[in-house]
């Protein structure tokens, strides 16, 4: 596994305008979905994004997929700015970065056969012969644990877990270097989840892929990821290796999040950090540290005024945290 960087976010922001009106549309506000994030991820690693609903995880993933254009900043894949790509370079990127989405029911086109769904990337980017395509589809279906005969079926003939396998197959077919996984298992049944998680891990081993994983279940991230980035209101508030983070979360928000997670045995009780108040709106995020209105460990008025930067937590090598306490 080489340790060079594959993905890098540099000060990336994504603000969605809230427009009003049809003819003379004017902007009535902005959703600060992603509000300045910096990230780097090395080849072969798995980075998990966690955080509450609406904190911008999916938007971050979509930015890396070129499905959204950033309002500010750059997203680099293999040293190239993803949003500047054109022509052959764009094609190359399209085959190198693939995605698996959350909902296996809406991520497969119900009107296409599995063969066509899986082969889409090949068809669009390469001109391969029919038999070549069929061969590759068959191989990749085997890889994800489906039978090549199933290539002619339609998505509705599959169960949720099988559909997610089809989705993974179609992501794998172009031999991507990186997969963006947006909650790949949260819509699946409990007993199917582990099948898919294990499959994803096996494939990563086999092909040395990099994963950007969006998840809200901490257990899943712990199982899957090497790195963890905790997001709150469009910003990364803590970024570290999984081991380090689970051993000692630093940011008060991370602590609260971890403490709210449910135990895996009736005898375990966590020291619960009780958060008061609601999640603030991303349209009008609080000044300074956006967590300050709910923060039980507020350091003082600095939290209300100055936005904390991600910096190395004291006494660690690569545990970054954005909090005035450190």
């Amino acid at each position: 596994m080489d340790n060079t960087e594959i993905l890098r976010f540099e000060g990336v922001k994504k603000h969605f305008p809230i427009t009003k009106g049809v003819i003379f549309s004017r902007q009535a506000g902005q959703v600060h979905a992603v509000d300045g994030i910096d990230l780097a991820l090395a080849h072969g690693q798995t980075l998990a994004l966690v955080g509450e609903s609406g904190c911008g995880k999916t938007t971050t993933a979509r930015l890396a997929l070129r499905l959204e254009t950033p309002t500010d900043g750059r997203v680099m894949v293999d040293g190239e700015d993803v949003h500047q790509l054109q022509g052959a370079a764009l094609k190359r990127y399209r085959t190198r970065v693939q995605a698996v989405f959350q909902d296996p029911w809406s991520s497969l086109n119900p009107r296409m056969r599995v063969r066509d769904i899986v082969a889409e990337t090949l068809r669009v980017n390469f001109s391969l012969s029919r038999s070549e395509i069929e061969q590759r589809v068959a191989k990749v279906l085997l890889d994800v644990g489906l039978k090549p005969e199933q290539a002619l079926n339609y998505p509705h003939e599959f169960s949720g877990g099988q559909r997610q396998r089809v989705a993974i197959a179609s992501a794998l077919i172009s031999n991507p270097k990186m997969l963006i996984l947006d909650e790949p298992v949260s819509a699946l049944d409990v007993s199917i989840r582990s099948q898919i998680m294990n499959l994803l891990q096996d494939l990563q081993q086999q092909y040395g892929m990099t994963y950007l994983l969006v998840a809200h279940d901490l257990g899943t991230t712990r199982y899957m990821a090497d790195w963890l980035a905790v997001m709150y209101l469009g910003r990364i508030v803590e970024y570290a290796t999984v081991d380090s983070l689970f051993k000692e979360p630093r940011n008060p928000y991370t602590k609260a999040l971890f403490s709210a997670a449910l135990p895996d045995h009736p005898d375990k009780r966590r020291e619960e950090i009780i958060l008061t108040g609601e999640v603030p709106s991303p349209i009008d995020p609080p000044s300074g540290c956006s967590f300050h209105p709910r923060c039980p460990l507020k350091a003082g008025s600095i939290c209300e005024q100055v936005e904390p930067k991600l910096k190395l937590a004291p006494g660690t090598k690569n545990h970054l945290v954005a909090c005035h306490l450190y």
Partner: protein
Amino acid sequence: MAKIIGETILQVENLQTELHTNIGVQRPVDGVSLSLRQGETLGIVGESGCGKSMTALSILGVVPKPAAQVVGGRVMFNGQDLRTFSEQQMRRIRGGSISMVLQDPQTSLNPVYTIGGQVTEAIALHRDVPRRSLMSHAIDALRQVRVAAPEQRVKDYPHQMSGGMKQRVSGAIAISCDPHVLIADEPTTALDVTIQSQYLRLLREIQEKTGLSIIFITHDFGIIANMCDTVAVMYAGRVVESGPVRAIFDEPRHPYTRALLNSVPTMDRHVKRLYSIPGQPPALWDRPAGCWYRNRCPFAEPRCETQYPPAIAAKNTAGSNHVANCWKLEDSTWITPKS
């Protein structure tokens, strides 16, 4: 946590519900038995589609019409069989003695009526309260579930509230008529973890205060561990194992229970490899002969293929109410091995 657990209040025996579909007649609930005592929390756990919700709805007799229909079994509530009740009598039970909270806070409140209207409706139906003081009762109920400034909130419409808030309003509706039993059907699935933990805490507090019995439906063992006293594990329309919560976690007897426990990753330690149950749960119309789990079970024996196993008591520390439907239990020392 000090809980007083009393007499059995609700006893479901061999409940069966039929569903008429294009494919034919199916039984999403096929002989479910449960028992709930006063002040107790019973968790029903199982995968999607195994009949958890349908069981709850069958208890209250509101299965989706006209497709579904309760066809067998008894629902004994305070010594009376609810299945013999008239519609009129059932209406008094529903929302009155037994109330229910549904999964999705986004859609379980009627978007075109105010919060206050929806809470007062329940009170007006079940409690003998003068019209004029309905609203103040509603406000009380909202206060009980910790809705801030309930006096103002009653005028709000559901869309003006956050998901957690709406779920609390659903809770307020459910407890507003002082029910004896609350059925909570995955009430926190749609909530964020931080909101979820607030809500669960709230439920526990209310239970402590009122001695409410709760049936908690979920597919999340974390919630079971956190909330429940006893657990029933459902698979494909039947309960396959039930017993006190610790026994289920520590000494699961049914291979399915163990497999489920092992296939869920935990944040507390790093696991090298998760157990994964092979295959899929059987479709309702395609259940195999014999034990319905046998196709996925690593311990299946020849007789599993022919006979559905009866409920066999597990002889262990938890006592006699730990039972599982697995032939392996005939060996009284059987505990499913960790895989």
